[in-house]
């Protein structure tokens, strides 16, 4: 019947429109205002290499950061795609790197990130090894 058809068409249109709006909202960039938040992490001040760290000296001082939790998750999510990492290959750990920033998603779903700086030069350096 014409009326039933019209009603069905209208209902379907509204449903598709609603789904379209929801989908568009899901793709929209986050509108939350940027703000500083506390994060979970650790740091180490050292000299020589992060793979064999020694006490910092006046002429050699570096810092390595290890970030966990929500901050690490947000970093990981922003650093796609995954890369192949020889030291975690086959372990179900997903690794993403950009420059000297390294993030990973553990098999458990936890996220961890690392990065560092040479405190004598300000240069970015790695904060982790294999």
């Amino acid at each position, binding site marked *: 019947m014409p009326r039933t058809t019209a009603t069905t068409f209208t209902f379907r249109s509204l449903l598709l429109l609603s789904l379209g709006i929801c989908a568009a909202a899901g793709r929209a960039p986050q509108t939350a205002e940027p703000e500083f938040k506390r994060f979970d992490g650790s740091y180490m001040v050292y000299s020589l290499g*992060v793979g064999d760290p020694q006490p910092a000296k006046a002429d050699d001082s570096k810092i390595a950061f290890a970030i966990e939790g929500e901050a690490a998750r947000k970093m990981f999510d922003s650093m796609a795609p995954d890369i192949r990492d020889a*030291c975690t290959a086959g372990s179900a750990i997903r690794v993403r790197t950009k420059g000297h920033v390294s993030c990973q998603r553990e098999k458990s779903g936890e996220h961890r990130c690392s990065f560092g700086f040479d405190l004598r030069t300000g240069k970015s350096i790695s904060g*982790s090894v294999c």
Partner: protein
Amino acid sequence: MESPAPSDSRGYFLIPQAYEGGGFYVYGTPDKGRGQYAHPKLISALLQVARSWSYLDKRKFGIDNISLSGGEPFNGHRSHRSGLEVDIRPVRKDGNRLPCSIFDKQYDREATAALIALFREHSKVQLVLFNDRTIQGVSHASNHSDHFHVQIAVTA
């Protein structure tokens, strides 16, 4: 700080911390062996290599991080949670228990190559990461000039 427990929740043991009879010494951060809980197969491999090394050379080689108690995330490492991975210092010419990079004058390439060869001969070793490309059987990885990373397989 208290000494770490000799074994952890996985049943993994600390490697010997004063193994004077063989070819290695221990070092690393955190200290006192708190980062040296090893899978039984890795302990076996290390003792076997150390024994073979002691026949070749009077210098001891340095063993660094393996895994933390319970396999907790190891800050400064992307892996080292399974107890199957270990970091080893390159061999120094003077044999001192100090850091050594492949760029140092003290770096003994020949001895380090011999040590890596012993690891590679072990049936369970599946990966060695190290940045001296003149040594056979190693793969390059960033920040691996002051140690080499050895990974063993559980089954092999």
